[in-house]
Protein backbone atom coordinates (compact mmCIF):
# COMPACT_ATOMS: atom_id res chain seq x y z
CA UNK A 1 0.00 0.00 0.00
CA UNK A 2 2.76 2.42 0.99
CA UNK A 3 4.61 1.42 -2.14
CA UNK A 4 1.56 2.15 -4.22
CA UNK A 5 1.38 5.68 -2.84
CA UNK A 6 5.12 6.15 -3.36
CA UNK A 7 4.85 5.03 -6.96
CA UNK A 8 1.89 7.32 -7.64
CA UNK A 9 3.76 10.30 -6.15
CA UNK A 10 6.79 9.52 -8.31
CA UNK A 11 4.70 9.26 -11.46
CA UNK A 12 2.96 12.52 -10.60
CA UNK A 13 6.30 14.26 -10.17
CA UNK A 14 7.83 12.76 -13.32
CA UNK A 15 4.93 12.92 -15.73
CA UNK A 16 2.78 15.68 -14.22
CA UNK A 17 4.72 18.70 -15.54
CA UNK A 18 4.91 17.18 -19.01
CA UNK A 19 1.21 16.39 -19.06
CA UNK A 20 0.39 19.94 -17.94
CA UNK A 21 2.12 21.37 -20.96
CA UNK A 22 0.19 19.07 -23.26
CA UNK A 23 -3.06 19.84 -21.49
CA UNK A 24 -2.66 23.60 -21.72
CA UNK A 25 -1.73 23.49 -25.37
CA UNK A 26 -5.44 22.82 -25.91
CA UNK A 27 -6.66 25.57 -23.55
CA UNK A 28 -7.82 28.96 -24.73
CA UNK A 29 -6.11 30.83 -21.87
CA UNK A 30 -2.82 32.46 -22.74
CA UNK A 31 -0.98 31.23 -19.65
CA UNK A 32 -0.74 28.03 -17.74
CA UNK A 33 -3.23 28.38 -14.91
CA UNK A 34 -6.70 27.38 -13.96
CA UNK A 35 -9.29 27.72 -15.24
CA UNK A 36 -7.65 26.75 -18.49
CA UNK A 37 -10.48 28.10 -20.62
CA UNK A 38 -12.29 26.25 -23.33
CA UNK A 39 -10.88 23.54 -25.56
CA UNK A 40 -9.17 25.01 -28.60
CA UNK A 41 -6.79 24.15 -31.38
CA UNK A 42 -6.01 27.81 -31.93
CA UNK A 43 -2.35 27.53 -30.88
CA UNK A 44 -1.75 24.71 -33.31
CA UNK A 45 -3.44 26.66 -36.08
CA UNK A 46 -1.26 29.62 -35.25
CA UNK A 47 1.83 27.40 -35.56
CA UNK A 48 0.79 26.23 -39.00
CA UNK A 49 0.75 29.83 -40.16
CA UNK A 50 4.09 30.68 -38.54
CA UNK A 51 6.80 30.51 -41.19
CA UNK A 52 9.51 30.78 -38.50
CA UNK A 53 8.26 27.60 -36.86
CA UNK A 54 7.89 25.89 -40.19
CA UNK A 55 11.51 26.60 -41.14
CA UNK A 56 12.71 25.45 -37.75
CA UNK A 57 10.63 22.29 -38.05
CA UNK A 58 12.14 21.48 -41.44
CA UNK A 59 15.65 22.10 -40.15
CA UNK A 60 15.05 19.84 -37.16
CA UNK A 61 13.80 17.06 -39.40
CA UNK A 62 16.82 17.33 -41.70
CA UNK A 63 19.25 17.36 -38.77
CA UNK A 64 17.50 14.49 -37.00
CA UNK A 65 17.40 12.39 -40.16
CA UNK A 66 21.06 12.98 -40.96
CA UNK A 67 22.03 12.31 -37.34
CA UNK A 68 20.04 9.08 -37.33
CA UNK A 69 21.63 7.76 -40.50
CA UNK A 70 25.19 8.80 -39.74
CA UNK A 71 25.27 7.80 -36.09
CA UNK A 72 23.70 4.43 -36.88
CA UNK A 73 26.48 3.79 -39.38
CA UNK A 74 29.35 4.97 -37.18
CA UNK A 75 27.85 3.41 -34.05
CA UNK A 76 27.09 0.04 -35.63
CA UNK A 77 30.55 -0.25 -37.15
CA UNK A 78 32.08 0.72 -33.82
CA UNK A 79 29.94 -1.85 -31.98
CA UNK A 80 31.10 -4.54 -34.38
CA UNK A 81 34.69 -3.41 -33.85
CA UNK A 82 34.31 -3.46 -30.07
CA UNK A 83 32.91 -7.00 -30.18
CA UNK A 84 36.17 -8.11 -31.77
CA UNK A 85 38.27 -6.69 -28.96
CA UNK A 86 38.90 -8.38 -25.65
CA UNK A 87 36.70 -7.02 -22.84
CA UNK A 88 39.27 -4.73 -21.23
CA UNK A 89 40.29 -2.58 -24.23
CA UNK A 90 36.67 -2.67 -25.41
CA UNK A 91 35.53 -1.15 -22.13
CA UNK A 92 38.18 1.57 -22.32
CA UNK A 93 37.32 2.55 -25.89
CA UNK A 94 33.59 2.53 -25.09
CA UNK A 95 34.17 4.72 -22.04
CA UNK A 96 36.14 7.20 -24.15
CA UNK A 97 33.47 7.33 -26.87
CA UNK A 98 30.81 7.86 -24.18
CA UNK A 99 32.65 10.76 -22.56
CA UNK A 100 30.88 13.45 -24.66
CA UNK A 101 27.57 12.29 -23.17
CA UNK A 102 28.85 12.66 -19.62
CA UNK A 103 30.40 16.09 -19.92
CA UNK A 104 28.27 19.23 -19.84
CA UNK A 105 26.94 19.88 -23.35
CA UNK A 106 27.88 23.51 -22.80
CA UNK A 107 31.58 22.61 -22.68
CA UNK A 108 31.28 20.24 -25.64
CA UNK A 109 29.49 22.94 -27.65
CA UNK A 110 31.95 25.68 -26.76
CA UNK A 111 34.90 23.48 -27.65
CA UNK A 112 33.38 22.82 -31.06
CA UNK A 113 32.85 26.54 -31.64
CA UNK A 114 36.41 27.38 -30.58
CA UNK A 115 37.92 24.83 -32.94
CA UNK A 116 35.71 25.48 -35.94
CA UNK A 117 35.65 29.27 -35.73
CA UNK A 118 39.06 30.13 -34.31
CA UNK A 119 41.09 26.98 -35.08
CA UNK A 120 39.90 26.08 -38.55
CA UNK A 121 38.29 29.33 -39.57
CA UNK A 122 35.37 27.52 -41.14
CA UNK A 123 31.87 28.72 -40.46
CA UNK A 124 29.25 27.13 -38.29
CA UNK A 125 26.05 25.73 -39.69
CA UNK A 126 23.97 22.61 -40.07
CA UNK A 127 26.85 20.22 -40.89
CA UNK A 128 28.49 21.18 -37.59
CA UNK A 129 25.20 20.69 -35.73
CA UNK A 130 24.84 17.25 -37.30
CA UNK A 131 28.40 16.27 -36.39
CA UNK A 132 27.78 17.39 -32.82
CA UNK A 133 24.60 15.33 -32.65
CA UNK A 134 26.33 12.28 -34.11
CA UNK A 135 28.96 12.66 -31.39
CA UNK A 136 26.37 12.39 -28.59
CA UNK A 137 24.10 9.89 -30.34
CA UNK A 138 26.70 7.32 -31.39
CA UNK A 139 27.43 6.02 -27.85
CA UNK A 140 23.73 5.12 -27.53
CA UNK A 141 23.80 3.37 -30.90
CA UNK A 142 26.89 1.45 -29.81
CA UNK A 143 25.20 0.31 -26.58
CA UNK A 144 22.02 -0.79 -28.35
CA UNK A 145 23.82 -2.64 -31.14
CA UNK A 146 26.32 -4.27 -28.78
CA UNK A 147 23.47 -5.56 -26.64
CA UNK A 148 21.96 -7.12 -29.76
CA UNK A 149 25.26 -8.54 -31.00
CA UNK A 150 25.94 -10.10 -27.61
CA UNK A 151 22.91 -12.32 -28.16
CA UNK A 152 23.78 -12.96 -31.78
CA UNK A 153 24.81 -16.53 -32.56
CA UNK A 154 28.06 -16.17 -34.52
CA UNK A 155 27.86 -19.85 -35.45
CA UNK A 156 25.08 -18.88 -37.86
CA UNK A 157 27.62 -16.75 -39.77
CA UNK A 158 30.01 -19.71 -39.89
CA UNK A 159 27.12 -21.89 -41.04
CA UNK A 160 26.33 -19.48 -43.88
CA UNK A 161 29.98 -19.48 -44.98
CA UNK A 162 30.05 -23.26 -44.77
CA UNK A 163 27.01 -23.42 -47.07
CA UNK A 164 28.78 -21.34 -49.70
CA UNK A 165 28.15 -17.72 -48.73
CA UNK A 166 30.84 -15.09 -49.16
CA UNK A 167 31.60 -12.86 -46.18
CA UNK A 168 29.37 -10.15 -47.61
CA UNK A 169 26.53 -12.59 -48.34
CA UNK A 170 26.77 -13.95 -44.81
CA UNK A 171 26.50 -10.42 -43.42
CA UNK A 172 23.64 -9.40 -45.69
CA UNK A 173 21.58 -12.59 -45.63
CA UNK A 174 22.16 -13.78 -42.08
CA UNK A 175 23.39 -11.02 -39.81
CA UNK A 176 21.61 -7.95 -41.14
CA UNK A 177 18.07 -9.40 -41.09
CA UNK A 178 18.61 -10.48 -37.50
CA UNK A 179 19.95 -7.18 -36.18
CA UNK A 180 17.84 -4.92 -38.41
CA UNK A 181 15.25 -4.12 -35.76
CA UNK A 182 17.97 -3.10 -33.32
CA UNK A 183 19.50 -0.83 -35.97
CA UNK A 184 16.19 0.86 -36.69
CA UNK A 185 15.67 1.25 -32.95
CA UNK A 186 19.11 2.82 -32.60
CA UNK A 187 18.38 5.21 -35.48
CA UNK A 188 15.12 6.31 -33.86
CA UNK A 189 16.81 6.92 -30.52
CA UNK A 190 19.45 9.00 -32.34
CA UNK A 191 16.74 11.05 -34.02
CA UNK A 192 15.05 11.61 -30.65
CA UNK A 193 18.34 12.74 -29.09
CA UNK A 194 18.90 15.13 -32.00
CA UNK A 195 15.40 16.61 -31.74
CA UNK A 196 15.73 17.05 -27.98
CA UNK A 197 19.10 18.77 -28.05
CA UNK A 198 19.10 22.49 -27.51
CA UNK A 199 22.55 23.45 -26.25
CA UNK A 200 24.77 22.04 -29.00
CA UNK A 201 22.39 23.25 -31.70
CA UNK A 202 22.15 26.75 -30.26
CA UNK A 203 25.94 27.16 -30.28
CA UNK A 204 26.80 25.54 -33.57
CA UNK A 205 23.92 26.40 -35.87
CA UNK A 206 25.24 29.83 -36.80
CA UNK A 207 22.05 31.15 -38.36
CA UNK A 208 18.52 29.80 -38.48
CA UNK A 209 16.68 27.70 -35.96
CA UNK A 210 15.88 24.18 -34.97
CA UNK A 211 12.62 23.67 -33.14
CA UNK A 212 14.53 23.73 -29.84
CA UNK A 213 16.28 27.03 -30.50
CA UNK A 214 13.01 28.40 -31.85
CA UNK A 215 11.24 27.52 -28.60
CA UNK A 216 14.14 29.07 -26.69
CA UNK A 217 13.65 32.33 -28.50
CA UNK A 218 10.00 32.36 -27.49
CA UNK A 219 10.73 31.35 -23.92
CA UNK A 220 13.19 34.20 -23.47
CA UNK A 221 11.15 36.98 -24.96
CA UNK A 222 7.47 36.62 -24.25
CA UNK A 223 5.29 34.19 -22.41
CA UNK A 224 3.91 33.01 -25.70
CA UNK A 225 1.19 30.39 -25.27
CA UNK A 226 2.09 28.74 -28.55
CA UNK A 227 5.10 27.35 -26.67
CA UNK A 228 2.77 24.74 -25.17
CA UNK A 229 1.76 23.65 -28.64
CA UNK A 230 5.33 23.54 -29.98
CA UNK A 231 6.45 21.67 -26.88
CA UNK A 232 3.67 19.16 -27.42
CA UNK A 233 4.67 18.65 -31.04
CA UNK A 234 8.29 18.12 -29.97
CA UNK A 235 7.19 15.78 -27.20
CA UNK A 236 5.03 13.68 -29.46
CA UNK A 237 7.94 13.31 -31.86
CA UNK A 238 10.65 12.41 -29.33
CA UNK A 239 8.46 10.16 -27.22
CA UNK A 240 6.89 8.61 -30.29
CA UNK A 241 10.27 7.86 -31.80
CA UNK A 242 11.70 6.40 -28.62
CA UNK A 243 8.61 4.33 -27.85
CA UNK A 244 8.80 2.92 -31.36
CA UNK A 245 12.52 2.29 -30.92
CA UNK A 246 11.87 0.46 -27.68
CA UNK A 247 9.28 -1.79 -29.25
CA UNK A 248 11.57 -2.61 -32.15
CA UNK A 249 14.68 -3.17 -30.08
CA UNK A 250 13.09 -5.21 -27.36
CA UNK A 251 10.00 -7.01 -28.49
CA UNK A 252 10.60 -7.89 -32.09
CA UNK A 253 13.15 -10.61 -32.47
Amino acid sequence: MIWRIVIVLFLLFMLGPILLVVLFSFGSNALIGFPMGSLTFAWYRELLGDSGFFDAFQTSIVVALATAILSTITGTLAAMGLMRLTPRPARTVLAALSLPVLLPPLVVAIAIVVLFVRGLGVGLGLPVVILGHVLVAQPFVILIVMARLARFDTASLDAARDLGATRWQAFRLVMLPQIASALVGAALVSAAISLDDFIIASFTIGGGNTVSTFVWGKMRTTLDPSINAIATVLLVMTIGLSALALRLARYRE
Partner: protein
Amino acid sequence: MKRGAVALLSPAGAVFAAVFAIPAVMLFVVSFWSVRSFKLSPDVSLAAWQRFFTEYWDLTLYTLLIGISTGVLCTVLGFIFAYAARFRAGRHGDLLMLATLVTLFGGYLVKIYAWKSILGADGLLNQALMLTGLTDAPLAFLIYSRSAVIIALVHFLLPFAILPIYASLRNVSDISLEAARDLGASTTQLLTRVILPQIQAGLFSAFAFSFLLAAGDYVTPMLLGGTSGSMLGQFVLLEFSTRFNWPAGSAMSFGLLLACFVVLGAAGYLMRMALRPRPA
Protein backbone atom coordinates in the same frame (compact mmCIF):
# COMPACT_ATOMS: atom_id res chain seq x y z
CA MET B 1 44.22 -4.43 -31.22
CA LYS B 2 43.12 -6.30 -34.26
CA ARG B 3 43.31 -4.54 -37.58
CA GLY B 4 39.67 -5.20 -38.48
CA ALA B 5 38.54 -3.73 -35.17
CA VAL B 6 40.52 -0.54 -35.77
CA ALA B 7 38.99 -0.11 -39.22
CA LEU B 8 35.48 -0.61 -37.85
CA LEU B 9 36.08 1.85 -35.02
CA SER B 10 37.60 4.53 -37.20
CA PRO B 11 34.42 6.32 -38.43
CA ALA B 12 33.15 6.76 -34.86
CA GLY B 13 36.68 7.63 -33.79
CA ALA B 14 36.93 10.27 -36.52
CA VAL B 15 33.74 11.98 -35.33
CA PHE B 16 35.02 11.74 -31.76
CA ALA B 17 38.32 13.33 -32.73
CA ALA B 18 36.87 16.03 -34.97
CA VAL B 19 34.14 17.36 -32.71
CA PHE B 20 35.34 16.32 -29.28
CA ALA B 21 38.97 15.35 -28.68
CA ILE B 22 40.67 17.97 -30.86
CA PRO B 23 38.23 20.75 -29.85
CA ALA B 24 38.76 19.86 -26.18
CA VAL B 25 42.53 20.13 -26.56
CA MET B 26 42.15 23.40 -28.42
CA LEU B 27 39.81 24.71 -25.73
CA PHE B 28 42.37 23.81 -23.10
CA VAL B 29 45.13 25.60 -25.02
CA VAL B 30 42.94 28.69 -25.37
CA SER B 31 42.66 28.91 -21.58
CA PHE B 32 46.32 30.07 -21.60
CA TRP B 33 45.79 32.70 -24.25
CA SER B 34 45.32 36.36 -23.49
CA VAL B 35 42.68 38.89 -24.44
CA ARG B 36 43.15 42.59 -24.98
CA SER B 37 40.24 44.81 -25.97
CA PHE B 38 38.18 41.90 -27.27
CA LYS B 39 41.11 40.56 -29.29
CA LEU B 40 42.29 37.04 -28.69
CA SER B 41 46.00 36.28 -29.03
CA PRO B 42 47.98 33.09 -28.48
CA ASP B 43 50.02 33.36 -25.32
CA VAL B 44 51.18 31.45 -22.27
CA SER B 45 49.28 33.33 -19.65
CA LEU B 46 47.74 32.19 -16.42
CA ALA B 47 45.48 35.23 -16.24
CA ALA B 48 42.33 33.28 -17.09
CA TRP B 49 43.09 30.63 -14.50
CA GLN B 50 43.90 33.30 -11.96
CA ARG B 51 40.57 34.85 -12.64
CA PHE B 52 38.81 31.51 -12.18
CA PHE B 53 40.45 30.92 -8.82
CA THR B 54 39.97 34.44 -7.48
CA GLU B 55 36.68 35.66 -8.93
CA TYR B 56 34.74 32.49 -9.43
CA TRP B 57 35.73 30.16 -6.65
CA ASP B 58 32.64 30.89 -4.54
CA LEU B 59 30.32 30.50 -7.52
CA THR B 60 32.07 27.22 -8.34
CA LEU B 61 31.36 26.02 -4.81
CA TYR B 62 27.69 27.01 -5.12
CA THR B 63 27.53 25.24 -8.45
CA LEU B 64 29.06 22.10 -6.99
CA LEU B 65 26.65 22.32 -4.08
CA ILE B 66 23.66 22.44 -6.40
CA GLY B 67 25.19 19.60 -8.41
CA ILE B 68 25.79 17.48 -5.33
CA SER B 69 22.30 18.15 -3.95
CA THR B 70 20.78 17.21 -7.29
CA GLY B 71 23.02 14.15 -7.60
CA VAL B 72 22.23 12.88 -4.10
CA LEU B 73 18.49 13.49 -4.50
CA CYS B 74 18.45 11.80 -7.90
CA THR B 75 20.40 8.80 -6.64
CA VAL B 76 18.23 8.31 -3.55
CA LEU B 77 14.94 8.91 -5.37
CA GLY B 78 16.17 6.91 -8.35
CA PHE B 79 17.00 3.98 -6.11
CA ILE B 80 13.57 4.09 -4.44
CA PHE B 81 11.82 4.16 -7.79
CA ALA B 82 14.03 1.50 -9.37
CA TYR B 83 13.63 -0.68 -6.28
CA ALA B 84 9.87 -0.32 -6.53
CA ALA B 85 9.92 -1.17 -10.22
CA ARG B 86 12.16 -4.21 -9.69
CA PHE B 87 10.75 -5.69 -6.50
CA ARG B 88 7.44 -4.07 -5.58
CA ALA B 89 5.53 -3.43 -8.78
CA GLY B 90 5.21 -7.00 -9.97
CA ARG B 91 4.30 -7.13 -13.61
CA HIS B 92 3.79 -3.35 -13.70
CA GLY B 93 7.56 -2.90 -13.43
CA ASP B 94 7.95 -2.60 -17.19
CA LEU B 95 5.25 0.06 -17.25
CA LEU B 96 7.14 2.10 -14.67
CA MET B 97 10.27 1.89 -16.78
CA LEU B 98 8.28 3.03 -19.80
CA ALA B 99 7.15 6.06 -17.78
CA THR B 100 10.82 6.69 -17.00
CA LEU B 101 11.72 6.65 -20.67
CA VAL B 102 8.87 9.02 -21.49
CA THR B 103 10.23 11.40 -18.87
CA LEU B 104 13.73 10.96 -20.27
CA PHE B 105 12.64 12.00 -23.74
CA GLY B 106 10.15 14.55 -22.49
CA GLY B 107 12.16 17.45 -23.87
CA TYR B 108 14.82 19.38 -22.04
CA LEU B 109 13.40 22.84 -22.66
CA VAL B 110 9.83 21.64 -22.29
CA LYS B 111 10.52 20.45 -18.75
CA ILE B 112 12.15 23.71 -17.69
CA TYR B 113 9.28 25.63 -19.23
CA ALA B 114 6.80 23.44 -17.39
CA TRP B 115 8.45 24.15 -14.04
CA LYS B 116 8.47 27.85 -14.80
CA SER B 117 4.73 27.62 -15.33
CA ILE B 118 4.24 25.67 -12.13
CA LEU B 119 6.52 27.62 -9.80
CA GLY B 120 6.07 31.12 -11.28
CA ALA B 121 4.47 34.05 -9.46
CA ASP B 122 1.19 33.47 -11.30
CA GLY B 123 1.97 29.79 -11.71
CA LEU B 124 -0.07 26.79 -10.76
CA LEU B 125 1.37 26.26 -7.31
CA ASN B 126 0.71 29.82 -6.18
CA GLN B 127 -2.77 29.68 -7.64
CA ALA B 128 -3.44 26.51 -5.74
CA LEU B 129 -2.06 27.93 -2.51
CA MET B 130 -4.18 31.04 -2.80
CA LEU B 131 -7.26 29.10 -3.81
CA THR B 132 -7.04 26.91 -0.74
CA GLY B 133 -6.46 29.98 1.38
CA LEU B 134 -3.05 28.90 2.61
CA THR B 135 -1.61 32.20 1.46
CA ASP B 136 -3.27 35.36 0.24
CA ALA B 137 -0.44 36.68 -1.92
CA PRO B 138 1.77 34.79 -4.39
CA LEU B 139 4.92 33.39 -2.83
CA ALA B 140 7.76 34.90 -4.80
CA PHE B 141 10.43 32.59 -3.41
CA LEU B 142 9.01 29.55 -5.20
CA ILE B 143 10.67 30.57 -8.41
CA TYR B 144 14.01 32.29 -8.92
CA SER B 145 15.66 30.39 -6.11
CA ARG B 146 18.18 27.63 -5.62
CA SER B 147 15.41 25.20 -4.68
CA ALA B 148 13.52 25.92 -7.90
CA VAL B 149 16.68 25.08 -9.83
CA ILE B 150 17.22 21.88 -7.86
CA ILE B 151 13.60 20.76 -8.30
CA ALA B 152 13.74 21.25 -12.05
CA LEU B 153 17.15 19.59 -12.31
CA VAL B 154 16.02 16.59 -10.28
CA HIS B 155 13.00 16.27 -12.53
CA PHE B 156 15.15 16.45 -15.65
CA LEU B 157 17.88 14.09 -14.39
CA LEU B 158 15.87 11.52 -12.42
CA PRO B 159 15.51 9.19 -15.44
CA PHE B 160 19.29 9.30 -15.92
CA ALA B 161 19.64 8.04 -12.35
CA ILE B 162 16.86 5.46 -12.48
CA LEU B 163 18.09 3.69 -15.61
CA PRO B 164 21.56 2.57 -14.44
CA ILE B 165 20.27 1.66 -10.97
CA TYR B 166 17.43 -0.37 -12.47
CA ALA B 167 19.84 -2.07 -14.87
CA SER B 168 22.06 -3.19 -12.00
CA LEU B 169 19.08 -4.18 -9.84
CA ARG B 170 17.99 -6.53 -12.60
CA ASN B 171 21.27 -8.34 -12.22
CA VAL B 172 20.64 -8.95 -8.52
CA SER B 173 19.35 -12.49 -8.54
CA ASP B 174 16.26 -13.35 -6.54
CA ILE B 175 18.07 -16.45 -5.39
CA SER B 176 20.78 -14.44 -3.65
CA LEU B 177 18.05 -12.52 -1.80
CA GLU B 178 16.29 -15.74 -0.82
CA ALA B 179 19.59 -17.15 0.35
CA ALA B 180 20.18 -14.07 2.52
CA ARG B 181 16.68 -14.36 3.96
CA ASP B 182 17.26 -18.05 4.59
CA LEU B 183 20.42 -17.16 6.50
CA GLY B 184 18.43 -14.80 8.69
CA ALA B 185 18.88 -11.34 7.15
CA SER B 186 16.35 -8.70 8.14
CA THR B 187 14.91 -6.33 5.54
CA THR B 188 17.42 -3.64 6.47
CA GLN B 189 20.30 -6.08 6.40
CA LEU B 190 19.09 -7.36 3.05
CA LEU B 191 19.26 -3.82 1.73
CA THR B 192 22.58 -2.72 3.21
CA ARG B 193 24.50 -5.99 3.00
CA VAL B 194 23.13 -7.74 -0.07
CA ILE B 195 21.39 -5.35 -2.45
CA LEU B 196 23.29 -2.08 -2.18
CA PRO B 197 26.80 -3.62 -2.34
CA GLN B 198 25.77 -5.49 -5.50
CA ILE B 199 24.56 -2.34 -7.29
CA GLN B 200 27.43 -0.03 -6.35
CA ALA B 201 28.38 0.51 -9.97
CA GLY B 202 24.82 1.45 -10.86
CA LEU B 203 24.52 3.82 -7.92
CA PHE B 204 27.78 5.50 -8.84
CA SER B 205 26.78 5.91 -12.51
CA ALA B 206 23.48 7.37 -11.36
CA PHE B 207 25.21 9.91 -9.14
CA ALA B 208 27.90 10.67 -11.73
CA PHE B 209 25.36 11.25 -14.50
CA SER B 210 23.00 13.44 -12.52
CA PHE B 211 25.76 15.34 -10.70
CA LEU B 212 27.82 16.08 -13.82
CA LEU B 213 24.89 17.15 -15.97
CA ALA B 214 23.46 19.27 -13.15
CA ALA B 215 26.74 21.00 -12.37
CA GLY B 216 27.29 21.78 -16.03
CA ASP B 217 23.82 23.12 -16.75
CA TYR B 218 23.15 26.77 -17.45
CA VAL B 219 19.67 26.87 -18.99
CA THR B 220 17.80 25.83 -15.84
CA PRO B 221 19.41 28.42 -13.55
CA MET B 222 19.01 31.03 -16.27
CA LEU B 223 15.24 30.53 -16.37
CA LEU B 224 14.48 29.48 -12.81
CA GLY B 225 17.42 30.58 -10.67
CA GLY B 226 17.12 34.33 -10.50
CA THR B 227 20.12 35.95 -8.86
CA SER B 228 20.39 33.64 -5.86
CA GLY B 229 20.36 30.52 -7.96
CA SER B 230 23.09 31.35 -10.46
CA MET B 231 25.51 28.69 -11.58
CA LEU B 232 28.97 28.78 -13.13
CA GLY B 233 27.71 27.64 -16.53
CA GLN B 234 25.86 30.93 -16.99
CA PHE B 235 29.09 32.85 -16.51
CA VAL B 236 31.02 30.55 -18.83
CA LEU B 237 28.43 31.48 -21.42
CA LEU B 238 28.72 35.14 -20.48
CA GLU B 239 32.52 35.13 -20.86
CA PHE B 240 32.19 33.49 -24.24
CA SER B 241 29.42 35.62 -25.62
CA THR B 242 29.08 39.17 -24.37
CA ARG B 243 32.47 39.59 -22.70
CA PHE B 244 34.27 37.77 -25.49
CA ASN B 245 36.83 36.50 -22.99
CA TRP B 246 37.37 33.00 -24.35
CA PRO B 247 40.37 32.18 -22.15
CA ALA B 248 38.34 32.93 -19.03
CA GLY B 249 35.40 30.85 -20.25
CA SER B 250 37.76 28.05 -21.15
CA ALA B 251 39.60 28.08 -17.83
CA MET B 252 36.25 28.10 -16.04
CA SER B 253 35.06 25.11 -18.08
CA PHE B 254 38.12 23.07 -17.26
CA GLY B 255 38.16 24.34 -13.69
CA LEU B 256 34.60 23.15 -13.25
CA LEU B 257 35.39 19.76 -14.81
CA LEU B 258 38.40 19.39 -12.53
CA ALA B 259 36.31 20.22 -9.47
CA CYS B 260 33.63 17.80 -10.64
CA PHE B 261 36.13 14.95 -10.93
CA VAL B 262 37.40 15.68 -7.43
CA VAL B 263 33.82 15.46 -6.17
CA LEU B 264 33.24 12.24 -8.11
CA GLY B 265 36.41 10.71 -6.70
CA ALA B 266 35.33 11.61 -3.18
CA ALA B 267 31.82 10.29 -3.81
CA GLY B 268 33.19 7.01 -5.12
CA TYR B 269 35.44 6.67 -2.09
CA LEU B 270 32.65 7.43 0.36
CA MET B 271 30.34 4.97 -1.34
CA ARG B 272 32.94 2.21 -1.25
CA MET B 273 33.60 2.87 2.43
CA ALA B 274 29.91 2.92 3.29
CA LEU B 275 29.13 -0.29 1.42
CA ARG B 276 32.26 -2.32 2.13
CA PRO B 277 31.60 -5.76 3.60
CA ARG B 278 31.42 -5.47 7.36
CA PRO B 279 32.43 -8.08 9.89
CA ALA B 280 29.37 -9.56 11.54
